[in-house]
């Protein structure tokens, strides 16, 4: 028998930890029982036992999956109702009534702005300062209200942005940067080769596309070759610095893909980027916010002298900033001498460091914002857990 899946969404203000608890409490009061949970982002609940012969709406065998995502000071909540009966047997009115009830109860129970209330960290129970939604003790942002308050905020899902920040779409990173990279800013991620960095970069690209922002991605390989969602987007412009890659085999459109003969010929690359920028300007205008990821800086530094690389990078950053781009670059510091890395650092407004260190005898990945000029950030060390990043990623 075919199941019926109906999705709903809403946004409420507050922090994800407290909202999660409220949602779970309210759904339990509506007869749902907890099946599996991944606090504070996903919960799965069940209700009812019957299919076609259900005596009431509550009696229909239902699986409800709820996903939560923190966006700035708000939480986006996605509901996925899976009814074990065909669609024709479901009363839309009943579903709507059920959702309205859930929504109103959640809204009535969640607090408006966590910054206005006293909070504690869910992880270490440290007191969170008023005006902050981030634990300065452990670096986590999973905070909850000490006392609940009742206030407004009830709207259908609309992705909410901090207008002055460009979000990664990766909670861990966005929290540390207090929302993301300042718009039109230039951020460097220094990181060894690791999957955590790749997940963060991929999410940055996906978030750009989700938010209908144009993104230019410069690399020496076709990193998104298997990701159809990214590759087929008309908003992604790829510059591939590798003559060996067969552009014809890629799933991107020819207009959105530029190939140059490696990173050794910086002049050629620079000309190609200018041409690309002019094309983008014709399509989108100069005003809209855009992003660029320079993911071949280490190759460039290896192939060219640091003087030439610095000169090229400075011109490239200026060129893109003038056209309203926010710039993200990556560099593997283990490939270069300290002096070489130093020649590039001051070209960036901020630096996020990803590094490996031992924790309880096991190698773990951590990140830390080293600096972010003229902007708030948390300088705490945060552990990067691949699985957590992927969950945030999927949400």
């Amino acid at each position, binding site marked *: 028998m075919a199941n019926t899946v109906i999705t709903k969404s809403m946004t409420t203000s507050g922090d994800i930890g407290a909202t999660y608890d409220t949602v779970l409490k309210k759904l339990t009061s509506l007869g749902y029982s907890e099946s599996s949970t991944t606090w504070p982002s996903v919960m799965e609940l069940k209700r009812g036992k019957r299919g076609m012969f259900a005596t009431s709406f509550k009696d229909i065998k239902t699986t409800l999956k709820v996903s939560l995502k923190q966006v700035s000071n708000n939480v986006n909540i996605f509901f996925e109702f899976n009814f074990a009966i065909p669609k024709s047997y479901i009363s839309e009115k009943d579903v709507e009534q059920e959702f309205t009830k859930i929504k109103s109860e959640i809204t009535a129970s969640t607090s408006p702005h966590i910054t206005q209330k006293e909070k504690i960290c869910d992880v270490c129970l440290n007191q969170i300062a008023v005006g902050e939604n981030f634990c300065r003790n452990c670096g986590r942002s999973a905070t909850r209200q000490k006392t609940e308050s009742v206030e407004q905020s009830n709207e259908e899902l609309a992705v909410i942005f901090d207008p002055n920040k460009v979000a990664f779409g990766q909670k861990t990173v966005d929290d540390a940067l207090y929302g993301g990279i300042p718009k039109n800013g230039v951020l460097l991620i220094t990181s060894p080769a690791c999957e955590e960095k790749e997940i963060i970069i991929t999410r940055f690209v996906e978030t750009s596309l989700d938010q209908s922002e144009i993104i230019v991605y410069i690399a020496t390989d076709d990193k998104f070759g298997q990701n159809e969602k990214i590759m087929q987007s008309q908003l992604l412009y790829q510059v591939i610095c590798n003559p060996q890659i067969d552009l014809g085999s890629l799933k991107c459109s020819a207009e959105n893909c530029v190939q140059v003969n490696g990173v050794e010929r910086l*002049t050629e690359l620079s000309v190609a980027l200018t041409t690309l920028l002019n094309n983008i300007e014709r399509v989108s205008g100069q005003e809209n916010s855009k992003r660029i990821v320079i993911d071949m800086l280490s190759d460039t530094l290896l192939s*060219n002298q640091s003087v030439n690389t610095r000169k090229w990078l400075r011109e490239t950053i200026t060129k893109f900033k003038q056209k309203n781009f926010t710039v993200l670059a990556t560099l593997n510091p283990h490939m270069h001498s300290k002096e070489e890395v130093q020649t590039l650092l001051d070209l960036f407004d901020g630096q996020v460091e990803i590094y490996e260190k031992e924790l309880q005898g096991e190698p773990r990945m951590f990140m830390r914002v080293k600096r972010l000029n003229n902007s708030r950030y948390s300088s705490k060390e945060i552990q990067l857990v691949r699985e957590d990043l992927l969950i945030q990623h999927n949400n």
Partner: protein
Amino acid sequence: MTVQSTQPRKLSTGIEGLDVLLGGGLPEKRTILVLGGPGSGKSILCTQFLKEGLEKYNEGTIYVSLDYSKKAFMHDMLQFGWDFETYEKNGHFLFLEGAAIRRLPQTAASVDVIYTPDDLTLEDLIDLLSLHIEKIGAKRVVIDDLTALTFRFPDDVQRRGAILSLIEALSSLDVTTVIISEALGYGIGRGINIEEYLSDGVIGMFLLKDGTRAIQISKMRGVQVDNKPHPYNIVDKVGIEVYPTETIFSEK
């Protein structure tokens, strides 16, 4: 860098980026040298200059070739979509095939006078040009290339005298002339040709070690120009494309 100029009337080269570097174009009625190695696109640049005069200003133009056959020229330029046979039929363009004059004494294809290789002197060339400039009302002239004309002057003093005579004569003909010559290397340490001192302007076209093409205006008398090297490309169906805002990152 964009150069603002209040200098003599400029003739657009037909290459937007180069005009930016020149502050509008080549100064009128001057003799400009275009230097470069083999395959650098000197002939293409010069032909674009003639084409601009033909198409935009309906000016008469002359291409004097000492090494380049007319047939090859017509064929090569057609690859960029430039149909010089039609311009020739319309009477606005003249191809003076010096190669035929020098190599085949009895068959001077495009000219009325027949020369043997040894006969073709600079004086003859000037006479010939003078005749045809008047005949078609030419405003733009290209001489391709100077090395072939001056090879018979191994002595520097004689060579200098001959080139000076040619440049003076061309100036008196009221045309803007572009002379092609071979470059002796690239960069600060490269050898300087005598003609570079004598001409009114010098544009160098160079191929760098990594394959990057660079163009540089090292001299333009009485005119403010951007004299930094900038990248350029030879683009199919377009010709020479100069990128005046771009920098050369390559090693010389």
